[in-house]
């Protein structure tokens, strides 16, 4: 393994993150606070409790997931798209590094940033609601795995994208709707039976459900399904990236 190369990519990307730290932190903190005001205070006053948890607390895992999914995807897609766009990708292609090392560097950095933002949102949430986390280790595990798997997805998008519109398309058109419809702000059991069935095809449901279970010990689907869903998603992304580097798809002419 070319560890120095992995470290170089990781440090380079993290330096970019820290250069724009204020932007990176202010906007998620602000939007999270707004969600609490709108959903927690306005709507929550009418919903009161969901399966024994106050509505304000109930939406915390979903809110974290919403931001973390978007952040890890966009960070990673931008991270690899930018060198392609300005042409510095020649360095990656001509260096003695394997595709796996490139992925660890870029995806690692993107996931780290998303993870930090997830923790910041959790801290922000504490100002608004009382939270006790039932299974903190599971909570962290879900958070880390989610950051990594969606950073992998973002990496694929960054390589696939040929312009900035395409780069923003997937997070905007796919991820945000999936998260909103994935039970961030409600329990699946609140839906009519037909919709409950349809929702089960949304992979994000399993993530949010598992994550929420880590917080409150209750879930829409069983924990095993959630873990399996992440594993399948991650494997699919890794396989796709492996194929990209073998064929040089949109990287090597």
């Amino acid at each position, binding site marked *: 393994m070319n560890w120095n190369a992995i470290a170089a*990519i990781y440090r380079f990307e993290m330096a970019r993150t820290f250069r724009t730290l204020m932007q990176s932190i202010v906007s998620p903190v602000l939007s999270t606070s707004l969600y609490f005001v709108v959903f927690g205070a306005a709507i929550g006053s009418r919903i009161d409790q969901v399966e024994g948890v106050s509505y304000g607390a109930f939406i915390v895992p979903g809110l974290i997931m919403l931001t973390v999914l978007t952040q890890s995807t966009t960070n990673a897609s931008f991270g690899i798209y930018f060198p392609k766009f300005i042409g510095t990708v020649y360095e990656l292609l*001509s260096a003695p590094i394997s595709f796996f090392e490139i992925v660890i560097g870029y995806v690692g950095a993107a996931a780290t940033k998303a993870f930090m933002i997830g923790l910041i949102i959790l801290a922000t949430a504490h100002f608004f609601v009382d939270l006790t986390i039932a299974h903190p280790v599971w909570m962290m595990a879900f958070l880390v795995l989610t950051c990594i798997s969606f950073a992998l997805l973002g990496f694929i998008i960054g390589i696939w994208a040929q312009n900035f519109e395409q780069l923003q398309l997937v997070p905007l058109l796919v991820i945000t709707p999936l998260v909103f419809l994935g039970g961030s702000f409600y329990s699946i059991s609140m839906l009519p039976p037909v919709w409950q069935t349809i929702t089960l095809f949304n992979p994000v449901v399993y993530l949010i459900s598992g994550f929420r279970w880590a917080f409150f010990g209750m879930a829409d689907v069983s924990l095993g399904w959630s873990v399996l869903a992440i594993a399948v998603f991650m494997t699919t992304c890794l396989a796709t990236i492996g194929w990209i580097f073998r064929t040089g798809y949109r990287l090597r002419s």
Partner: protein
Amino acid sequence: MKDLVRNALLNNKQPAATLGDSMTTILNVSDVTKTYEGGHQALKGVDLEIEEGEILALLGPNGAGKTTLISIICGIATASSGTITVGGFDHVRDYRAARNLIGLVPQEINLEPFETVMNSVRFSRGLFGKPRDDARIEEILKLLSLHDKKDSRIMTLSGGMKRRVLIAKALCHDPKILFLDEPTAGVDVELRKDMWDIVAKLKQTGVTVILTTHYIEEAEAMADRIGVISKGEILLVEDKDALIKRLGQKELLIELDNPIEALPEALASHPLTVSDDGGLIYTYDAQAGSTGITGLLADLREAGLHMSDLSTRQSSLEDIFVDLVKEDAA
């Protein structure tokens, strides 16, 4: 005259004499072809052998395939067929070992605008698996007269400085082979001379340099050998000194008061030919101690030929280059 030199060049296909057995091949390109997705064949079976420590200038017009060839060797593009070894390592199977030996300065100025020079060079060194060594990087920056800019952001540098940053990035992992793809494109005269000095310094440290250029003058100033590529084919690779020496061949054109049809018997001992307009053409080596011109003039007078005018001409590398490429295009 051009034909004369041209034939001399093209008949001399074996490696130049200065490359003795003691030298080792560091780069071997064997029958490499490249067809781009659109169907354009950019390389048509390129063979090239580079000796350790030499400087090769690859001359060729726009679209000849210079960048394509370099990109394939460095791993940025994939060859359609053929094999390449770098320091004996296959550039696909043993890509790590092969690429460790190579530094690449691309034709385009591709740099991260917001990074500092130092950070950017550090990143490159890291990519090649070398531990951080700022002292070594500063040495390289000094060599390139960039040291005072080490903490400047790249976007604040001039074009010539940016090009030098690219060179620093390529050199920071101490490669044995350096590719310079048009190092002096868009660079002023002074910086061009600087570039020549830099290449000379690199040569002293034993680095093998392969550079591409459109300028003959540049190839002459920097290279040990000169290759000419056009339309994806290498037309010739020649030792520069031998080339220049052959170019030392000059012609003396003698116009006569009374044009002649055939060469008089009395002048048969001289390397003379009769020109189309009935004058004489005398071929000689300008660098040789004795040109034989004095003797010739005496013999001319004796043979009763009266000269009306004299002129000399010399073919330049430029002529040959243009000639070769034109012929190839026809």
